[in-house]
Each structure stands twice: as structure tokens, then as C-alpha cells.
């Protein structure tokens, strides 16, 4: 009976959802001879400014609550509920905008372009998660970020990603952040927003390619926990660094680790560091030599990276519409193409001098060229530092959440026997009080 009841509920739900399908679409036939007048174009009114601050207030509350639930209550269920709320509010209700991840670009652009006024709410959306991370770890990722939330909900059959693969794939996030900052700094494009894989779901519309990419990420996310957060999220890169030095952070065990290893496979995001042993003496000496070589190689890697990326500056600069337009106009002027595009037609309709367009594009190319050098040096340096990181001996006696990688989802809590002791004590204390 209970089973039948449980089956009826979704059946009724589907019936309700299917109702619109039966609706007959009616479209009045046009009557050209009746003096039909086209209706005036109307525009949706702009969102009232006060809502921005409501969003900020909701963000602040969600961050506070998330931090409390993760660090004090250690309650996975409550974290899950907050995750669902964040998905509904910041995702489906606010349609994924404004978000802290994309706000990075606004801040960068405001930094490099004095004429760009970044809204205060956007600044807060960028800063608040950083501040909270600095104090409490990645509680924003845990239950506030809508992009993280939608991925978190589809984690069904998580598979461990080997450390080597994780380490290599994470380079993508740094590269993505670097390119996003470069393109935002030159005013070229906000690629984080343009290629937001989940915004099409939140808005139930969007570019088909992005929709497919988002769908693929969610399907992958069934088996590999939060692939976007771990391997692509540019904001996550910043949060990782802040989380390393955060004042308080997630601990698997509420008091002491008894090395029971029960939590070993509990994290779907591979963010639990196992206890370690000392390296063999021979390997230790070898690693010291390797470390020395890598430190010497750091500037070489940075310079090589700078040169390699500088060669791509022309391609990167094409992200800027002015450069693309100048390219197109040049192709048209030089007879390499015979037709026009909407953009080139519109430009030609303005009567602006083509030489001026070329000059603007050249200026952007120059800026992008310099930015590419910096980006390349950054990537080279990053690879060097990563190699150094993997050459340094780590000593851990306990199982602990990775300082940078832990998304503070709280899944590991219930795997720890000490947590159950704690909960039992709390329960007993409550009963005793009664």
C-alpha cells in the first residue's frame, strides 16, 4: 500500500505537468485588408535596484548559515536543504545572475577601465564569499553557489579521480581564470558568463552548445563529483588559495582522528588527505635534488610560458568585438571575402573611418599581447610550483580534509565514528536536561 502511494505521487505530478500538452494552440489568421496595426513594442521594466541589495542580504545570510551548519552544527542534511534553497534562489529565481564567479570579471574590468562603474552589489557578491572563505573555508561552495549546488545534487555514483589526473585537470581552472582575467581586463569579453554551463538550465533557454556542454557536465557529475567546480571554476581557484589560510575550516572528525579509515572514500570530490609515512631516505635525497632543480627551473618555465602564450595573443585578441570587426573589415577591404556580416554592415553604416577602427583594434591587440605575456608567465610559474608541490615531502598523521580542495559539503561527517559519539553525547545531554 505504501509502495502504491509512493508511486501515485509522482504519477499525479506528471499528470499535472502534462496538462499543458493538451492545450490547443490557437493563432488568429492574419487579415491584411482590415487595417491591422502592429502593436507597439514594449519592454520589460528594469529590475528595481532594491532587489540587488535583497540578493546581497540573501547571500550574506546563506553564507552565514552555511558556515554555521558546516563548522558548528556539522549537519549534512541541513547543508543539503540550504544547497537546494540556493539552487532555487540564486539559480532558478535569479537566473544565475549576478554570481560571484562572473563578478570576478566586473571587478577586473573596473580595475583596468576607469570609465567602467561596477555596481556595489556586484562588488559584494565578489567579496563576501572571499571573506567567508578566508575565515571559514569554502562554505560558499558548500551550499551557496548555484553552480555548485546543481552539480552537488546529481552526485549519485561518485568515482575517485586519481590524484595525478586531478592535479593535471586543475590546470584548466587556472588557465580559464587567467584567460578570463585577461579578456576582462582588455574589455574583450566576459567569457565566464558567456560560457557558464548551467545558466541555460536556470533560464530554461540559451545557446544550444552551452546547453549541451552543461548537460554533459551534469552527466559526468553523476560519476565525478562537481567537475566544473574542481577542474574549471575560475573563482574556485581564488577560493582554494584563501581556504589554505582560512582561520577555521572543515574537520572530518570533531575531536581526534583514530585512523579508522572509514572516511577514506567518503568524499566524492577527492578532498580527503590520507595519513602519510616518512619517505625512504634514498628518495628523500633524490627529491631534494629534484626540488633544487625545479626551483632553478621556475624562471625558465615562466619565461617559456610567456613566449608560448604571447604567440597566441592574436587569437586571444579576437575575443574583442572591435578586433573581430577590424579583421572582418580588413578581409572585406582587401577582397579576401566578398560578402558582409551584420557587424561589418552596421559599422559601415556609421561612417566611422576604417583607419580609426584599425587603430583601436591594434591598441587592443597590443594590450592583449602584454596580457598574454603575463598569462604565460603565470601558467609557467604555476606548473613549476605544482611540480615543486608534488616533490615536497608531506607528513600527516591524521585523515584530514584538504585545505584547498575541501568543498565543505559535510558528507564525511557521518562516516566518522567520533562524530557519532559526539552526536550521542549531545542526544544524551538533551535527554538529561529533559
Amino acid at each position, binding site marked *: 500500500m*505504501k509502495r502504491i502511494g509512493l508511486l501515485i505521487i509522482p504519477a499525479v505530478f506528471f499528470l499535472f505537468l502534462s496538462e499543458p500538452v493538451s492545450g490547443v494552440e490557437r*493563432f488568429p489568421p*492574419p487579415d491584411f485588408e482590415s487595417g491591422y496595426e502592429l502593436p507597439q513594442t514594449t519592454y520589460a521594466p528594469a529590475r528595481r535596484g532594491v532587489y540587488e541589495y535583497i540578493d546581497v542580504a540573501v547571500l550574506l545570510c546563506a553564507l552565514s548559515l552555511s558556515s554555521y551548519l558546516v563548522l558548528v552544527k556539522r549537519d549534512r542534511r541541513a547543508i543539503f536543504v540550504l544547497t537546494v534553497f540556493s539552487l532555487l534562489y540564486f539559480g532558478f529565481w535569479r537566473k544565475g545572475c549576478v554570481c560571484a564567479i562572473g563578478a570576478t570579471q566586473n571587478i577586473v574590468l573596473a580595475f583596468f577601465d576607469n570609465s567602467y562603474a561596477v555596481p556595489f552589489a556586484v562588488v559584494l557578491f565578489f567579496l563576501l564569499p572571499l571573506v567567508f572563505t578566508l575565515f571559514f573555508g569554502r562554505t560558499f561552495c558548500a551550499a551557496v553557489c548555484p553552480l555548485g549546488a546543481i552539480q552537488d545534487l546529481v552526485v549519485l555514483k561518485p568515482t575517485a579521480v586519481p590524484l*595525478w589526473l586531478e592535479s593535471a585537470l586543475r590546470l584548466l581552472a587556472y588557465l580559464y581564470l587567467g584567460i578570463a582575467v585577461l579578456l576582462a581586463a582588455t574589455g574583450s569579453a566576459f567569457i565566464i558568463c558567456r560560457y557558464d554551463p548551467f545558466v541555460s538550465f536556470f533560464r530554461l533557454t540559451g545557446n544550444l552548445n552551452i546547453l549541451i556542454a552543461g548537460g554533459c557536465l551534469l552527466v559526468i557529475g553523476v560519476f565525478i563529483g562537481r567537475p566544473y567546480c574542481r577542474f574549471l571554476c575560475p573563482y574556485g581557484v581564488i577560493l582554494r588559495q584563501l581556504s589554505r589560510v582560512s582561520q577555521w575550516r572543515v574537520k572530518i572528525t570533531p575531536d581526534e582522528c583514530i585512523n579508522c579509515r572509514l572516511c577514506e572514500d567518503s568524499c566524492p570530490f577527492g578532498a580527503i588527505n590520507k595519513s602519510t609515512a616518512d619517505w625512504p631516505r634514498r628518495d628523500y635525497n633524490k627529491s631534494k635534488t629534484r626540488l633544487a632543480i625545479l626551483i632553478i627551473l621556475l624562471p625558465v618555465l615562466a619565461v617559456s610560458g610567456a613566449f608560448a602564450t604571447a604567440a*597566441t595573443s592574436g587569437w586571444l585578441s579576437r575575443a574583442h568585438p572591435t578586433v573581430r570587426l577590424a579583421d572582418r573589415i580588413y578581409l572585406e577591404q582587401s577582397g579576401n571575402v566578398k560578402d558582409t556580416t551584420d557587424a561589418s554592415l552596421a559599422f559601415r553604416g556609421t561612417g566611422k573611418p576604417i583607419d580609426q577602427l584599425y587603430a583601436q583594434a*591594434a591598441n587592443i*591587440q597590443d594590450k592583449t599581447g602584454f596580457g598574454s605575456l603575463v598569462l604565460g608567465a603565470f601558467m609557467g610559474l604555476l606548473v613549476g610550483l605544482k611540480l615543486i608541490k608534488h616533490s615536497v615531502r608531506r607528513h600527516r598523521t591524521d585523515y584530514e580534509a584538504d585545505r584547498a580542495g575541501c568543498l565543505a559539503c559535510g558528507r564525511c561527517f557521518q562516516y566518522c565514528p567520533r562524530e557519532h559519539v559526539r552526536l550521542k553525547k549531545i542526544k544524551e545531554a538533551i535527554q538529561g536536561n529533559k
Partner: protein
Amino acid sequence: MSKIREESFVDSASAGAAYQAALWSAVVSGVFSAIVLVLLVVNYLQIKVLDPLRAERLEMMKVKFIGEPLSEDMLFDIRRLDLEIRRDKIRRQFFSRRGGYLLLGGLVVCVAGLKLASVLGRRPPQPAAPDDKQARQMREAAMARWAVTAGLGLLSVAALIVAFNPQINITEITAPAYPSEEQINNNWAGFRGPAGAGISAYENIPTKWDGKTGDGILWKSKVPLRGHNSPVVWAGRVFLSGATSKKRQVFCFDALSGELLWTADVAGTAAGGTKAVDIMDDTGYAAPTVATDGRRVYAIFANGDLGCFDFDGKSIWTKSLGVPDSTYGYASSLAMYRNLLLIQYDQGMAEEVKSRMIAIDGYSGRIVWEVRRPVAGSWASPIVAKVGEKHQLITCSDPWITGYNPATGEELWKALCGGADMAPSPVYAGGFVFAVSPYDHIVAIRPDGRGDVTDTHISWSAEDSIPDICSPVSNGKVIFLLHTAGTLTCYQCADGKILWEKELDTSFNASPSLVGDKIYLLSTKGVMFIARIGAEYEEIARCELGEKVHASAAFANGRIYIRGTKNLYCIGTANE
């Protein structure tokens, strides 16, 4: 510890029913979502594949209908298909929207079911046997180093692929987007050459030829259609246009051999091509001289049809400006400023404000700017002259002589001194804009003013021997006026004093030209009068073409191109 573990996780047997229900809910909703997804994909394919095909069919039917305007059946079919397309489009948009909600709902139930099932079916953790920590750590570190290095390698390969992809480096573009001033000055890109001044950039121009004997005539080619427009010469090509009441064509001749390289039709447009144009025979259907920017050639005709062709005769665009309301027939030649084609489209009465100055982007045919002009119809051509460091577009009309910014159409100055039936084009020389009102007066205007400069910037005006058709020519010190009846008058630029006059006893339609210190005057009988500029008229030569001429001559390096009523002539020596 095992007790704790057992308490911590839900026993799958005890929660079997709930587990089954959650799982089946997930399966049912998953199937439902898959069906909705398939329908959405089909709907999407219909939008992307089927609808464009139907839209294309509709466009073809519309084009066909223009040729058969009386076909009621076709009109009915067009309306029916149009209705179908619009109805289906809205239906599919609606389906996409609703389908999206259905899919989302299905997926939510599916994920919730799976999530619940996974919680209910969760088993206690069973850690594998402890491994060798030392070995593991060393192995993981080594593999991570290799992986990061491999990542670096992949990024480098990606960078190389991108770097070797052909890219345009805008910073290295040195070719100007439009002809340089040097190119314009070395060619004859429009009516009366550079700045419409009628001055040759070359001094090695022949002074002796005879059309009857062929002496000095390099070649002579028949022009397929009639037209009073003058030759335009650019980089070894000579361009002309010709038209009848039904046909409009542009011709390109090889400047070296005279071979007709191509003939291009300006297809009649719906606005201009189907209406009859009432014009004077003396004006003809192709009075305006074509213009070129060295990349394309542009032509306008009496019915307002405009055509653009590349140097191979391929049509780039055509356009109709509407049939002009012109008493004698439209005759203003085209002018160029950078990439802009400038059209003085004067018509009707001044109070009707039907006249326009239009700038069209040469490449695309798009109107860049357009200004209404409170002037009557005129037959003069606009000129683009460099005044100081900036260019000005100068027009002569009734009653305003006006200077514009050619880039934007902004009116810079205007002077109320134009007379009726303005035909001579203005010239800019010696710091003055000279504008001639037929049979009435000539004015010298300083073009450095702003707004209405009638009372402030007209330096002098004169009323003696004022021509009616021919445009003046000036070297900055003196200005020559040539009357149709054959009176050549030399004025002093600075003060408008007449220096001398000469009766040539023949008629002229072509405007005079200057070559170094010589003036070239081409009579309607085809006789070129060549005289030295001096204190008085000092004739050097008279050269007969042997054919009537209405158009002005074009000058190139060592050559003159003259359009007779039937033939195009190239005068010069073979070794030039």
C-alpha cells in the same frame, strides 16, 4: 565501532519499499524525460531545418510574384504559406518553452528518486586493506609530476596550434582602407579629376593630334551606349557609363589598348527601373560621370538607379534612390571621400525640400548619412576639396552654396548666393570656393566660416561673361570661365578683376582643364583649343578630333581620354 557503523547507515532491507518506490519513480520520470527530450530535439530540428526551407520557398514565391503581379492564386498561396510559417513558429516556440518545463520537472523527479534511492541503498563503508603508505605516496607524487608535465605539454601544443593558425595582425596593416591622396591625385577618379578641379597632375600631355588622319590618336573604341558623362581613369582602366530609357550600363576599357574589357548592366530596381523618366535629350539618361575609389566603380543614372561594380565588372550592389524630380534630367556626377560615395541628389523646388545629400558606403551600399537640403533641383556636381587640413564637401545649388563635413554630413557653412538652374560645378582654388550662377554671377567665398556666411565670407562677386554649363577652372591666381557660346574670360582670383576675354567663335559643353601653364578647351565640334596661361590668350594649338564632344576630357600620364558622341579616344604617344 561496528555497532556505530550499523546504526549510521540505513539498512536496505528495512527500507526496501521506499527504496523500490524511489527507484521506480526515478525510472518512470527518466523515461518521461527522455521522451520529452526526444520531442524537444525533433522540435528543434524542425525549427532549424524545416522552417528555413519553407521561408526560402516563401521568398522565392514572393520574387516570382513580383514578375506576375496579377496572379491571385499565387497571392493566395503566398499568404497561406506565410500564415503557416508564422503559426508553426509560434507553436514551436511555445512547445520549446513548455517542453523545457516538462523536462525540468521530469529530471527533478528523476534525480530526487535516484538521490533517495542512493541514500536508502547506501552500504556501510568497507575500506580496502591498508596499503604501503610510503609506496603509495611516492607513486602518487611521481604520477602527479608526470601528469602536470603532460598537461604543460598539451597546453604548449595547443598554444602552438593556435599560434600557427593564420591570423591577421592589425598592427601590421599598412595598406590604407581607401585610396591615398597620392593615388587620387595621380588618377582621374571622377568628374574633372582630383577635387573636381579639372587640373592634370601630369604636364607631359599631348598638344598635337588629328582625329581625321589618326595622327596622335593611340586608339579609338566604340562606346556601346550613349551618354554625356566623362571618362574616369584608374590604374590602366577607363570607365564610362551609357544608357537608354530601358538600359543602363557601365563600360570598362583597357587604357592601353582601348579594348572593351567588360560591360555591366545596372539592373532595374523596383523603385527606379520600372518607371518612365522624362528628360531632355541634351541631358540623356547617363549624364552623371561615374566615380571610383580604386577598388570599385560607381554609376548613377537619370532614373536614380545606382550601381556598384568591382574592377572585373561583377555587380557588388545596386540601389534606387527613387526617380528624381529633375526638369532637364538628373546630371550631377558622383564624388568620393575615402570610402564614401557622395551623391548630390537635388530635385524639385527649394520649398519642397526634396533635395538630399547622400553618403553611401562604397563597399556595402549602405547609406551612412543623408541630409535634407532646402534647395531646388540642380545639375552641378559636388566636389571634395582639402581646405586647410580638413576636407570639405562643397555643393552649388539654388539658392545655397554649402560646405559639409564629408565624413558626417554636418553642415559647416552656407552662403545665400546660388542662382537658378545651377549647372557649373564649384572649384576650390587660391583659398576661395568659386561658384557660378548661370548667366548671372560668380562668387568667391572663403570656406573657413561657420553657419550662414553670406554677409561675412563672400570676398567678391562679378557678373560679366558668366557661363551657363561649363565649370570654371583655376590655378589659384586666375580663374577661367568658359561660356557655351565660346567666350573665355580670365578673372583674377584675389579680387575678381577681369584680366582678359577671348571670343573663340564656337560652342562648348565640356569644362576647361589646366595642364601646367596651359589651358585645354574642348569644343562641341571636337576641337581642342590649347592656349598658354598668360597676360592674354596665347593659343598654342587647335587639334581636331573629328567627332562631336559633350563630355569633359580626362588626363593621365602622357594621355588624354576624350569621349565623343560615339567613340572613346585615347590621345598620346605609344611610349608613354
